[in-house]
């Protein structure tokens, strides 16, 4: 990387719906050296977003099928494969298969809060 590129200020966009919060952040960041808060129409290097928005979009990479989501909710409720099978009207073998596929999938994307993921979309009975 050339020296001039390093010297160029980092362009920061504030993609925050809450106007008051966005204004406060803009005021705080206005005088930070090497950083420039850009307007919505300009291109940016990085963006600040709501923390809830980040976890929301991160859900996208799990890509669970509706059935898997259903199984995940039942798993979180502590159900056995047999109980899941009975609830969904499928065989224990099929339930086991779904559970295995789900665990593999979650592990592959490093999801540790899978339960929260399920609870955002479905009612969990505790």
């Amino acid at each position, binding site marked *: 990387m050339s020296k001039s590129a390093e010297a160029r200020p980092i362009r920061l966009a504030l993609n925050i719906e809450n106007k008051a919060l966005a204004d406060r952040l803009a005021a705080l960041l206005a005088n930070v050296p090497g950083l420039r808060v850009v307007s919505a129409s300009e291109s940016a290097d990085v963006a600040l977003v709501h923390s809830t928005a980040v976890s929301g979009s991160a859900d996208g990479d799990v890509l669970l099928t509706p059935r898997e989501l259903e199984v995940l909710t039942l798993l979180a409720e502590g159900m056995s494969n047999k109980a899941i099978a*009975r609830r969904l009207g499928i065989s224990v073998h099929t339930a086991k298969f779904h559970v295995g596929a789900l*665990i593999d999938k979650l592990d592959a994307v490093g999801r540790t809060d899978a339960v929260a993921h399920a*609870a955002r979309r479905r009612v*969990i009975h*505790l």
Partner: protein
Amino acid sequence: MTESAPFTKVQDLSAAFARLVGIAAPGVVAVQSDHSRSSGFLWRPGLIVTADEALSEEGDVAVTLPGGESIAARLVGRDHTTDIALLRIDRSDVPPVRLESPSVPVGALAIAVGAEDGAPTAASGVVSRSTGPWWSLRGGEIDARIELDLRMRRSAEGGLAIEAAGQTIGMTVFGPRRLVLVIPSATIERVAARLEKCGHIPRGYLGLGFQLVALEEGGRGVMVMKVEPQGPGAKAGVHQGDIIVSWNGEPIRHVRSLLRGLGPDSVGRTVTLGLSRAGETKNVPLTIAERPTA
């Protein structure tokens, strides 16, 4: 130094491996249930611990003792949250395994000992991960996360994981993508003792249905979407639409925090729920019941 010296050392190592398996094997049995073959081990006289996941949901269970004798076994209890099942056999002459909790640093040698038709099976590798307590997806509390980098045959699931000094680390089970996990000795002692006593692991029950919601004032909360009639939540005066904001004074932002409060020891306990209702916060005492078996 003679030419053969390095080979002698390799032979010593090989003999040590075989000896380790030999120490564990007398307590390891083969477990047969409907369409499934796994392993188990003598936990206490006449009581066998095995992997719940590998045990069929129905049908007869038999175990093959070291040496080849096959006998019937009865299910005492099973806990799918920690993957532990307990079986009873009418024999008290098979010596129980001594469960220990040695420290197992990452990279330490580990051997998995299983059994098939009365003969031991073995696999070796290293401890590939060793961290603190974790919760299984089904909500079971497991005392340590120990993963082994070894390829284990299906039938060895439910057998023993031992370390280089011959101490038992715990029971081997399969995790995601056939990764070998160890259910540590401490978890086995705790859960198996409970299974022996009452046949199952109780789970706390609120009788409420929850969903995560984004709060007006920012952040997230857990909203009550359903109240089971006559359930603990209904009795405590919780209503549909209430948002649970705290549990015994601790803020609640995740369903997970609720799950953690509903472990085996929670049944019968009274907790104070902080509810946000129509913009106002109120505290209500709720007595946790036992979750009905599904």
